């Protein structure tokens, strides 16, 4: 470092700064590592779909399973898959609550429910003709409208429900 100063003759109008040069060098060196880490984190799913983001949760009786993404981005569509393995009762009343209604906008639901309404801040989907003894799956395509962490609660008929958290990046 010393020879940097020694080899730099004073030139009128040119004010060299050793500290600024070192800062620039470190910013590029460590900054590049930081950018690589961000890309690695994105590839591994820390910002949206990927290994750390894709998650499945079952309720206590394994009568309800939800596949979701832990991490999402504001205004970027997110898929929510709700499966009822070998359900044997009809009609099915699916309740999606928690902060779901306040934090996200539901773009599409497939299959379309026979009846849909909101009740006490929950989205209620009723399927009259669900076939018994088969897995029944509902896909919800939603768009997060607020950043931050929020919890969604899902339950079917009177069975034990489950809740899961998601984090939405701004």
């Amino acid at each position: 470092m010393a020879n940097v100063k020694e080899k730099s003759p004073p030139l009128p109008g040119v004010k060299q700064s050793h500290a600024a040069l070192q800062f620039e060098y470190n910013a590029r060196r460590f900054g590049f590592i930081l950018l690589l880490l961000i890309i690695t984190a994105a590839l591994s799913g820390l910002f949206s779909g990927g290994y750390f983001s894709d998650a499945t949760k079952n309720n206590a009786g394994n009568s309800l399973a939800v596949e979701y993404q832990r991490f999402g981005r504001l205004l970027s569509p997110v898929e929510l898959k709700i499966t009822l393995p070998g359900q044997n009762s009809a009609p099915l009343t699916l309740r999606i609550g928690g902060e779901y209604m306040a934090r996200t906008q539901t773009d599409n639901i497939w299959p379309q429910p026979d009846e849909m309404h909101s009740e006490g801040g929950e989205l209620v989907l009723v399927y009259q003709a669900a076939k018994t003894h088969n897995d029944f799956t509902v896909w919800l395509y939603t768009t997060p409208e607020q950043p931050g962490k929020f919890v969604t609660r899902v339950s079917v008929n009177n069975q034990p429900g489950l809740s899961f958290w998601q984090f939405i990046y701004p």
Partner: protein
Amino acid sequence: MEMILRAVAIYLILLVVFKIAGRRALLQMTSFDLILLLIISEATQQALLGEDFSVTGAMLTIITLVVIDMLFGVAKKYISGAESMLDGSPVILVVHGELQNDKLKKVDVSCDDILVSARQNHGIYQLEKIKYAILERNGHISIIPEESES
């Protein structure tokens, strides 16, 4: 409020990323650099405006970006060392035809970069004929030829 926060966040992200990329990033402007610049501006535009296509939204974004830039300008003027840290300081890369290798490494400039600038601006093609080569704050390389040759 969201528009202003978006503009501030994007400004700071671009500031950090281009500080990391170095002062000569995108400066040489090859055809690929031009395409890269267009892609970056497109990605930035989406993040800045989101779903808001109103004139008011655009106005708020523009004003916020200009005001932040002015604030940084004031900081550079009145805070000692701020300009050097944000924009870098001039760096003398060649002294009487001799390369300052340590500095070249730190600013990521090659001997070829210096010779390109020397050829383009002064028709010099030999390192020995360069008295000083200075990397300026804006990333350009200024060449001062040896007096005997000029």
